[in-house]
């Protein structure tokens, strides 16, 4: 196939990731002559991954300390996945490639606090988070050949800076009286049922259970407005529903996307 429909996971990797995942995503997108990005992916991207980078930026800005930020992250991420956490924090603690690690006593004598390593590192990562956020936002509509399915209830407002903090506003739609996708979804009950059956056929997770409930409501109570929260909970089902028949859904999350896409005769591919 020459047409790809990009989901949020690949979109995020292509825009933000600097490691192999980013390279793979950008390379995969470039192999298609026609690529479509639904605005729904931009919305998910802003409300999800971009907020994590903004959080990190704001943490560095607030603590003005690399070591304190590392401590704060360790406390925040008190997850059972201790190994992954230590790997992640190890990456941030490894300052061998950083510019801040190259400071010395002479620079501190000349420039004072500005040249101290902890502040240099903190400012370095703060500025890099900032660069990634604004660069990704600037490129958000130029990654693919087409941006499709505009959302009339969604305002694509730019990240702003206020008192040194990066603020992401309009993370949610103004879905009044209902989400603009509601009428499109409700117009094809057969496909909604197929999506629900496929969703229910795999191991239930919290995300899948929420999606199933929304699909059920759309099928059984079409007069009920599709709320902003319900639209968000549909998640991957939106991509399967709206992807063109002659396209492949490009995603890193085959486990969730493939059963949904297959139920509608559509295909998926990982970068």
């Amino acid at each position, binding site marked *: 196939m020459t047409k790809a429909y990009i989901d949020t996971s690949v979109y995020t990797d292509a825009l933000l990731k*600097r490691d192999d995942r980013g390279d793979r995503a950008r390379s995969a997108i470039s192999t298609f002559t026609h690529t479509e990005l639904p605005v729904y992916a931009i919305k998910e991207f802003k409300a999800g991954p971009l907020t994590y*980078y903004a959080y990190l930026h704001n943490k560095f800005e607030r603590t003005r300390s690399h070591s304190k930020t590392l401590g704060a992250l360790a406390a925040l991420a008190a997850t059972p996945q201790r190994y992954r956490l230590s790997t992640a924090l190890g990456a941030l603690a*490894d300052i061998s*490639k950083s*510019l801040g690690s*190259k400071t010395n006593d002479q620079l501190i004598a000349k420039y004072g606090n500005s*040249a101290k390593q902890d502040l240099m590192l903190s400012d370095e990562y703060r500025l*890099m988070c*900032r*660069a990634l956020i604004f660069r990704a936002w600037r490129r958000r509509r130029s990654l693919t050949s087409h941006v499709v399915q505009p959302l009339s209830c969604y305002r694509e407002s730019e990240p702003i800076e206020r008192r040194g903090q990066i603020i992401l506003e309009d993370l949610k739609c103004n879905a009044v009286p209902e989400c603009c996708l509601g009428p499109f979804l409700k117009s094809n009950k057969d496909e909604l049922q197929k999506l629900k059956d496929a969703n229910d056929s795999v191991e239930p997770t919290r995300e899948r259970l929420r999606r199933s409930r929304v699909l059920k409501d759309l099928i059984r109570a079409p007069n009920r407005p599709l709320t902003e929260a319900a639209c968000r909970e549909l998640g991957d089902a939106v991509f399967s529903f709206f992807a063109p028949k002659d396209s492949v859904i490009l995603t890193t999350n085959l486990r969730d996307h493939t059963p949904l896409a297959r139920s509608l005769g559509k295909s998926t591919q990982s970068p």
Partner: protein
Amino acid sequence: MASAKIIPLRQDATTESVEGGTSRNRISSTVGPQGDQPTAVTARVFSAEEDVSGRNALAPTTVSDLYPEKSATSLEMSSAIQLLTEAQGLADRAYSAVQLQEIMAADDLMLQIHALLPELFACRHLGDGFGTLVLGLHYSIENSDGKPLALEQIGMIRKCVRKLLEQPLISSSAALELFDLLEGAELDPLPHALDPVTDIVAETKDD
């Protein structure tokens, strides 16, 4: 009577007067009580190419015109100009060297530029745009993993250094546009360390 205000003009610019020949601008004007009507002016006639300061309007503005050493507002600014001037000289020489296939000489000069960057970053209070572009230069060289840079890559770094020298108070968005050019030359101006951290933040928030 209100005190008259003396406005000294630059004494270092050399310009051509209409009478011909070269003359130094040693001009002062005495401004009247209202500050608008000069009561006495000791001046020569300016040529069409000169502005009111006597500077030749057709001549390009140099960094030292904008930030003369004596009036530099901060240690950071004067240090940055000095370091960037040095970096520009090194970049020019590196560019010439690589054109002459003197790869080792060019690489050595780029290492010298790299060594200037920590001190330049210590001047980051000049602005986020300045700090961002200095970091972009650092990671462009750092992420090349020690491999000598190609002509186009050195040319792009030279362009960024020149931009910083011309415009130390560069905006963040202008700095990010230069990142695009660095990436266009297959340089990588961003660090990789943030990816795993944001992954963990994502998982924590999703829980």
